[in-house]
């Protein structure tokens, strides 16, 4: 893959146009995914005006309402209305909340991003320390740490959350603090556990492989202290691998955050998406999907950028086209 020790002769690196191309691919991805969600929500049996009909609103009013909400349009028309709006970041109006979709998203999305972002930052920090100890820590703690990693990796966030809630109610911690602060913190912890374990495993494996490379052996022979080798030079190489699987971990955390949000009562994107889907709120469904897909697309691009920055041997054009840079590098 051109990542050998000898620098391969490759084209002049032009990262900027490549990342612009990646951004364009990401935009296309967001457009496709959100339009697909829009059409699915529109094709779903029942629509918003059913509730009006049930409330015995006159058929004239319903007809007017359908026209206002674009419910009388054909599917291709609807897609065009959505896509042209998306280009201008005008995401239409939510039927259920009777508010512009954009203002709803601006209100709710940051809450989800705060939850997921905090969980990811903590997971990375914990994963790297955990992974380093797994690979090069004192022999005595490696086995328990490894067992803990296998266990944590298999535990879904929702199970961890219930376990934490159980411990919190038993020990009385929950009563000690403000519940509206403690419960979301438990939610973050629940998201961190499986993600940190996954990152720890990946980091340990990458570090194990990096530290037997000739450069590492040569450095050790020259007298570079083991600590520096593990925490500085090896870290940089292993971080490349960890960065390349980061989007996968992030996608898992975003998926798990859906249920965590509902259980902890955190009014974020997950709850909003669910409400939109159940209410057949077509534009809100598309808006939520666009936000989630834009977030994962941006994370994928960010991870590619980090990989290129960390490892100058990997030129930007070598990264697989598409959203994911693959965990197999």
């Amino acid at each position: 893959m051109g990542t050998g020790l000898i620098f391969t002769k490759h084209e002049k690196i032009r990262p900027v146009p490549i990342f612009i191309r990646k951004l364009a691919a990401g935009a296309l991805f967001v457009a496709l995914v959100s339009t697909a969600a829009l059409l699915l929500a529109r094709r779903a049996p029942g629509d918003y005006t059913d509730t009006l009909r049930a409330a015995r609103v006159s058929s004239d009013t319903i007809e007017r309402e359908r026209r206002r909400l674009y419910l009388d349009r054909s599917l291709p028309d609807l897609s065009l209305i959505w896509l042209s709006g998306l280009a201008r970041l005008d995401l239409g109006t939510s039927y259920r909340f009777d508010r512009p979709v954009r203002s709803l998203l601006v209100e709710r999305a940051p809450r989800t991003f705060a939850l997921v972002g905090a969980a990811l930052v903590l997971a990375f920090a914990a994963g790297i320390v955990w992974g380093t100890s797994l690979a090069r820590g004192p022999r005595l703690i490696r086995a328990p740490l490894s067992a803990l990693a296998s266990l944590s990796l298999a535990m879904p966030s929702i199970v961890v959350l219930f376990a934490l809630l159980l411990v919190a109610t038993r020990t009385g911690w929950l009563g000690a603090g403000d519940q509206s602060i403690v419960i979301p913190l438990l939610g973050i912890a629940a998201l961190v556990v499986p993600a940190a374990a996954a990152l720890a495993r990946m980091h340990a494996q990458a570090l194990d492989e990096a530290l037997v490379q000739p450069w590492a052996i040569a450095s050790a022979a020259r007298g570079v202290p083991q600590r520096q080798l593990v925490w500085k030079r090896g870290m940089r190489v292993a971080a490349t691998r960890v960065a390349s699987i980061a989007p996968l971990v992030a996608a898992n955390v975003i998926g798990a955050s859906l249920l965590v949000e509902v259980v902890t009562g955190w009014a974020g994107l997950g709850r909003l998406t669910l409400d939109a889907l159940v209410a057949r709120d077509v534009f809100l469904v598309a808006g939520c999907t666009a936000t989630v897909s834009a977030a994962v697309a941006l994370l994928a691009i960010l991870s590619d950028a980090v990989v290129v920055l960390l490892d100058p041997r990997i030129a930007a054009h070598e990264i697989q086209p598409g959203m994911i840079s693959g965990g197999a590098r």
Partner: protein
Amino acid sequence: MARRAGLTLAGLLALLMMLGDRVAPNSAAEQFADRAWAPPMPLRLDGAAVIAHPLRMHDRLGRTFREDTSQRIEIDWFSRGRLIATRASDPEPLLLFGADTLGRDVLARVAGAARWSLGVAVTGSLLAIALGALFGAIAASGSRLVDRLVVASATALATLPIVYIVLTLRAALPLVMAPRDVFIALALLFGIVGWPLTARGVRGILMRERALDYAQAARAAGASRLRLMTVHLLPATSGFLVTQFLILVPGFLLSEVTLSFLGLGFPEPTPSWGTMLQDASNVRVIADAPWMLAPAAAIAVTSLALHLAAGRPLLSGGAPYTPPGSVARGAPSPRSASSRSSR
């Protein structure tokens, strides 16, 4: 060893999936009057017999129960079509995991839910790997269109959170459906969502295997394309498919739990781990009736068993696959070399 433990546990879960609530002394649907929120009944040894004492409601408002030690419920194994049963003459219910809001046996419901929650995840995963093997084979044998489709959908799916995709697809169907229809719909959805990841892996293995000597020899001996694929090449993917299956099941189980929790999965009174957890998702309930968290424990055990059985825990599909018997590339194994370098 961990792998063997995982496989054993997975086998037991498969048995549980087939037996359903027949492992419990009561049926999952039966409601016992005056037993709402009853705590688990401890089993005691009385000589050689295993017995329990019936619970009597002590305080209706405080929902407290007391053991009535003057009476005993004797356990009868393997009788009346149940693994654990009580004597037919015994009027008192045996509630080993306690009772839920409606006075239903939590053990029976957790076991009965295995049939639905685990059943739909297993069926969906089987469908996904069958479709994945089929499309992977088609992609590898030269159809450029399918090839592009496989790679593109696997890439997109690997990036998006699966739960969101399944939720959006499920919401496009009627919101209220009969349990059987939910089962079929979810299994099909899981198949649709799961195949691209499997197909990409199968395609990769087939493309590599095709270049090996044995495949060329088969071709030289006059094997048709179909025979080459089915008899010679596809068996090489079996290890990958088993691993993929073991990885998909916990993922889809979690999707089912999420959907049922959100009210888009199996409807009441069908027992499902997701709907049961919904009943428990309240700090008061967790504090007063922790036995309601039994489905969370069931999910944890299932997920752990399948992760252990899959061997090296993986994040998602498309992971590097080493065919059995192949020697890992590269020089010495990390462990031996690392101990050398640290000296």
